[in-house]
């Protein structure tokens, strides 16, 4: 006769094996596509700009004038209206006497003051499909680099979000 204590033990072992053996799988069939960008980047009238092949990334080097601002980059509209703002991911190379401002269509997006990053993002600016380009301008007296990104979303909506990398070096 089997000892009584063994029976519950065997039952627990059987149940444990049964739980591990039950597995469900539910699939989402994913079909990605490469699509036209909501906006494209183009060189500004000042400085030297290198664009990515798809015109959705850029690097600009520009000298800051004593007075006024340098037009570093243009953001060109696509087929629908999008909101655009800029965000700073990091800065480098600025000295303690350096100050610089980056604007998008005249709206301040980033600012370094006496070597410190004092503003790291700006409010949205509307990029109208039927409107003109938005101009990225830089002013001040500084030598340094902003690692930034453009953040785009359909006008008035929070989603989807498209980000374009942008490096701006001022001197």
């Amino acid at each position: 006769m089997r000892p009584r204590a063994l029976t519950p033990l065997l039952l627990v072992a059987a149940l444990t094996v049964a739980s591990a053996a039950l597995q469900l799988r539910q699939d989402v069939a994913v079909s990605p596509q490469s699509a036209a960008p909501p906006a494209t980047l183009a060189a500004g009238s000042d400085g030297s700009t290198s664009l990515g092949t798809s015109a959705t990334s850029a690097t600009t080097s520009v000298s800051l004038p004593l007075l006024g601002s340098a037009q570093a980059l243009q953001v060109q509209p696509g087929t629908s209206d999008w909101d655009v703002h800029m965000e700073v991911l990091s800065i480098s190379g600025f000295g303690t006497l350096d100050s610089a401002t980056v604007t998008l269509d005249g709206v301040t997006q980033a600012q370094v003051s006496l070597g410190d990053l004092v503003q790291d993002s700006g409010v949205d600016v509307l990029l109208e499909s039927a409107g003109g380009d938005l101009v990225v301008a830089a002013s001040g007296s500084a030598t340094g680099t902003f690692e930034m990104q453009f953040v785009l979303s359909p006008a008035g909506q929070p989603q989807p979000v498209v980000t374009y990398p942008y490096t701006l070096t001022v001197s």
Partner: protein
Amino acid sequence: MAVAVAFVLVASVVTAAVFIRQDIAISPSAQAPDVVFSTGDDYALINTAGYATVTIGSSGTSATFSLNGVPGAALVQLGDVLTLENTDVSQAYNVTLKRSAAPDAAIDGFDVQVYTAADSLVESFDAAAGASGTTFSLPAATTYDITIEISIADGTAAGALGSFDLQFELVPV
């Protein structure tokens, strides 16, 4: 001699004629699923903008998901585009995300992010970087929101970039 040979032949015929059959009577039935997919709160905005189309299967246990990425962009984020809901009030599940195949080589990143309703990140699985994510718990009567972030290599031509299955493996806890 002739008698012995005849006996062996008869024995062989008798063995082949013995046939035993034992049956298990099986009665399959369909059961309502515990865990189901549905579109997320921001899906309508994303779909209107032309960046994703989701079709949920009739039973909620499968979906098709077509989406757009932008070549050269750091990423395209489709926030709260899907949900994963455990409708059972007592049974929790462990969930592991896997991919059926590697995405197209032009896809630099395909990040599947799972969030609680309070926007706490539960799991982040990059299907472009690996075949399987980390197992996480889906408690009973709980809904998680899913965000997808896709990045496509600069210069990629417009058009389809293959397909793969995003597999949700569920094990009852």
